[in-house]
């Protein structure tokens, strides 16, 4: 029988993969993917816990997260395209224009 802890372990693993992606990746597009992975890890946790407690609030939250992630990607991709047009690259090491 697959229980709550299995779901949470999958969620934690996914979140860790996303976090490592955020920390290690240099390409902005890859960073976006990594954040999406993290968001979906959270969504899994929300849905699982919601089911566990028989409370729909968590699943509702997951829907909101999906909706906001979709709009975020829409805006973010737009910015990425502009950045790429301007700099010809999406590598973060080349985009360090705010050095203190």
């Amino acid at each position, binding site marked *: 029988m697959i229980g709550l802890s299995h779901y949470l372990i999958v969620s934690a693993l996914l979140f860790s993969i996303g976090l490592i992606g955020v*920390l290690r990746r240099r390409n902005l597009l890859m960073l976006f993917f990594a954040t999406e992975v993290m968001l979906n890890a959270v969504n899994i946790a929300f849905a699982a816990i919601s089911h566990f407690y028989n409370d729909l609030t968590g699943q509702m939250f997951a829907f909101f997260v999906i909706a906001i992630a979709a709009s975020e990607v829409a805006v973010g991709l737009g910015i990425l395209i502009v950045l790429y047009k301007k700099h010809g690259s999406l590598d973060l090491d080349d985009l*360090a*224009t705010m*050095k*203190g």
Partner: protein
Amino acid sequence: MMEKLVYIALFAPLVSSLFAAMFAMTPRKTFVGIIASLLLFTGFVASATLAVNIFTTGEAVSVTMMQWIGMGDLYIPFGFVADQVSVTMMTMVSLISTIVHVYSIGYMDHDKSFNRFFSYLSAFVFSMMVLVMSDNFAGLFIGWEGVGVCSWLLIGFWYHKPDQSREANPSISPSWAANEAFIMNRIADLGMLVGLFILYWNVGSLQYDDVFAAIPNLDQWILNGAALALFIGAMGKSAQFPLHTWLTDAMEGPTPVSALIHAATMVTAGVFLVIRANPLFSVTPEVSYFIAALGTFVAFFAASMALVNRDLKRIIAFSTLSQLGYMFAAAGLGAYWIALFHLVAHAFFKALLFLGAGNVMHAMHDELDIFKMGGLKKVMRPTYIYMGLASLTLAGIFPLAGFFSKDAIIETAFNEGTYILWIMLVVTAGMTAFYSFRQVFLTFHGTERYDHHEIHPHEMYKFVLIAMSPLAILAVIAGAFKDGFETFVTSLLPAYHMSEHTHHYVWLLTAIVTLFAVGGIALAYIKYNKGLERNEKLENSFIYKLLSNQYYIPNLYTELISKPYAMISEKFWHGVDMKIVDRTVDGVAHFLYKSGDVNRRMQTGNLSHYLNWMAVGAVVLMVAAAVTAMIG
């Protein structure tokens, strides 16, 4: 009506000061001086009217303007009282200050800070009025400090003059002298404050009436402590030994200032305090006797230094010190009204003497050495008459004012059976006569020792000479009012009567004093009337050197107090201030600066690094939350 007069007498000088202050930064304007003098004259008329009124009705006028401090049990109002004592002082102060204001229009004629001078001078008069009119010790203290500040401003009026060595100029420079006066007075004011605290602690009020009413209920040692502490304050303001050095150095200020502040009014504030607090001092016989003894000592001590001094203004300053000693002697022996009488008479002739000295300075282009003068009576006859008259009064020659007031003090010393004090005061009277006429003869008689090519002596402006005449008249006739004055002020002050025994000898006593005075004048006449014959041997003798260097007391203070103090300050500056205080403050700033400099490197501009730091921060926060959750 009477209340209004009190306010006019009090605030006319303030209005005058503020008016002159509006023009302080602008070039000389004669009308500033004229309006200031008129305002002061208004104050004088108000004071004189009050005096006449109180004389006829015998009722004091007291007003409470407003509450000043009120919290808990402490209640101090801005209250003013015009009674027999304060109205005497008010009339005297406002009269002399009016004359000095008019005089200053002439004397400060060429000074570019003419307007500023009037502002300070009037501010001084206002402070002095607060001092004498206040009906509580707190108000008196405010006036006390106010006159101190104005005195500082006025001594250092020519602050731009450079410092000189003590040999070239005993008071070094105006700004030095001003600081000296201010600091000496601060030392004494601490004593005064302690006295006020003792009184407030034990009585719960600083109103004169409440304090004096509570005196019978207080312990003797508390009374002694309070009286002594208050007298220490008086010693500073009235320049009694050992706080006397500032007064002669204060002569660096313009001469009208010397006349008004450092001879006639401010320096008598100490005597006024003792007179005002007579219920306290009359129940502390030991302290009172100390006051009398110190006063007598200072009278003699100052007169001895005046014998050999060459500086015109310093001689007069020493005579002021000496006469203040006389006043304290009288007050200490319980003859408060005689002290007040001498205070007023002294104010008239001393102001006259100083203003005359100002005329001489004006004529001699600020030369003050009487060895370099002589023969001035030909060109300056009115000044000669004024100064001669004032010196005769100072010497105590019948029937001038000084005769009546000083003789009464000397008689008091005899009457109290304090014969040592009596002998010293009589000898001092002889010395006073000698040095005042030494100065008159050296200045006005004999050969002309000044440089004829450089200096063309000329008499002062006419209006100045006319303005001085009331002082001359009062110096002559004030003695005639002695009995009236006695009945007037003894309705407030304790009466003092000579015993039968003294009455018996009164002619003899007067004769002895007069003999000493005339002897002093005669000696000065023999030695100095012809001119100056310098006696090298005498001038190099030890005593002469000791006296002309003021017993080396200023040098002693420099060596024993100023220099060690400067040395300790230097040590503390380098050791404590720089090494501990500054280093702590600098260390904090340095740490912040350095940590900022180090952490600046975090800001690489690389988003990836930022994200890493963000993850680190999130982990730290989570660990912290976990730890607190576990502990909590």
